[in-house]
């Protein structure tokens, strides 16, 4: 049979590109950046704080909305969370361009597998596929184009929410309670560590996620908290057995006002 495409026969979109269309993969032929040349990272937008935490019925994920170029704000409305499929979300921190590329590729990977095989990958399988993509990005990461995702979703087999974090080499680690990364990640983690407990309700988990982002924004210049004046709130997604849902602005506004009034005193 003369195939329209190349000779790849499997069910992975990422491998299909690698095998038959390598020119379509992001960041394939990187020119070597001369040593000491660090202006690149001041000229490209970087996405900052993202976090995930488990609660009684699943997981909550959140990310602030700011992207920075060096010391400048390049966007106040960037979205760092993407629905990978109906029951999982991927959040991206790092250099915005490669982050967007990887998120898009990962979304198609999930959909492609599901269509070819007739059933979705298990949650752990999805997490491993993402690890391969992060690994593929390692040469770019050495040149500063770092992508560090968090992947979380509802595992329909284990009947619980699960969180996976990654390092730049594609190492994949499961977190049992919560995780945060990006420039304000450390600050957000310390808030989560203090206030996290098992079996949080949905409302409590959303409030805690926002509180961690408010604290991160307090200490990290790259992170923005809820912006009441402009009506821009962090992006918050909740994944449960029923699927993924965005938390609407009214709910985020109410929680944000309460949190910020505590700061006011």
């Amino acid at each position, binding site marked *: *049979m*003369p*195939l*329209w*495409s190349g000779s*790849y026969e499997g069910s992975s*979109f990422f491998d*299909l*590109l690698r095998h038959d*269309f390598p020119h*379509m993969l992001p960041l394939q032929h990187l020119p070597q950046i001369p040593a000491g040349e660090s202006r690149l990272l001041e000229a490209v937008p970087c996405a900052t704080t993202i976090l995930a935490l488990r609660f009684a019925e699943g997981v909550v994920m959140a990310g602030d909305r700011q992207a920075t170029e060096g010391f400048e704000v390049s966007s106040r409305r960037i979205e760092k969370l993407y629905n990978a499929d109906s029951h999982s979300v991927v959040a991206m921190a790092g250099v915005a361009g490669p982050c967007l590329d990887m998120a*898009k*590729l990962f979304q*198609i990977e999930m*959909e*492609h597998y599901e*269509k*070819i095989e*007739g059933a979705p990958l298990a949650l752990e399988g999805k997490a491993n596929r993402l690890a391969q993509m992060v690994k593929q990005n390692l040469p770019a990461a050495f040149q500063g184009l770092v992508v560090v995702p968090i992947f979380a979703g509802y595992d329909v087999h284990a009947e619980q929410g699960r969180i996976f974090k990654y390092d730049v080499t594609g190492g994949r680690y499961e977190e049992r309670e919560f995780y945060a990364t990006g420039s304000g990640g450390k600050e957000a983690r310390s808030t989560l560590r203090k206030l996290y407990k098992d079996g949080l309700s949905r409302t409590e988990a959303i409030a805690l996620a926002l509180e961690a982002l408010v604290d991160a924004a307090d200490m990290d210049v790259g992170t923005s908290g809820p912006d009441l004046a402009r009506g821009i709130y962090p992006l918050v997604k909740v994944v449960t057995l029923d699927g993924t849902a965005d938390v609407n602005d009214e709910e985020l506004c109410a929680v944000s006002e309460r949190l910020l009034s505590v700061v006011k005193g």
Partner: protein
Amino acid sequence: MAVPFYVSPDQIMQDKAEYARKGIAKGKSIVAMEYAGGLLLMAENPSVSLNKISEIYDRIAFAGVGKYSEFENLRKIGIRYADITGYASSRRDVTTKSLAKTYSDIIGTVFTRDPKPLEVEILVVEVGEEEAANQMYHVSFDGSISDRQQFSVIGGHSDRIVAYLQDHYAANLSLSEALLLSHRGVMAGYERPPEEASALEVGILDRERVGRKFYRMPPAEVAEAMAVAGDEVEAL
């Protein structure tokens, strides 16, 4: 050196077509039908896992009859084609027309060039944003392509089913009415309907769905919908 017997091209094509037709007629039929809220595809399929109907892209579905391994291969090519196009450009740039032409090209090339033609017939359908924009393409074993409206039938004794549907099809059917009509059409394909009806595989492209429009209807839901429509018809 032995000289092969001369066989006229006419004869070669005829033989190939007959061979393919025989293979396809052995299988069961698939009906595609427009209804008020979208498009449906229905196949008689005793297997739960070896599907004949499948999702290709946001608004596009595929159905194949004939040799399973051959149309399964075509299905995967379609999904790869669509996903690559969508990745390189945008989701809106994946069109059924270009996909159907690609299929026509592949199947036609095999028919003329290879000793054995593909024993398949396929349907590629798309639900439009409004009803007039629905598209149905039928690609035959020799690569010939045609577009259809209202309904389309492939495989098995499709001529009988088409005759039945021409008499009974009406515009703006509800989903359950269209399911019932399609099923009656499939049954009309038999000279003597079998005592035990075989399991139905149904996929719909529902215009109201957000994002990906394809939905594989579980058999219980299909049976329920057809029962509802059946009661309504009897009440009239």
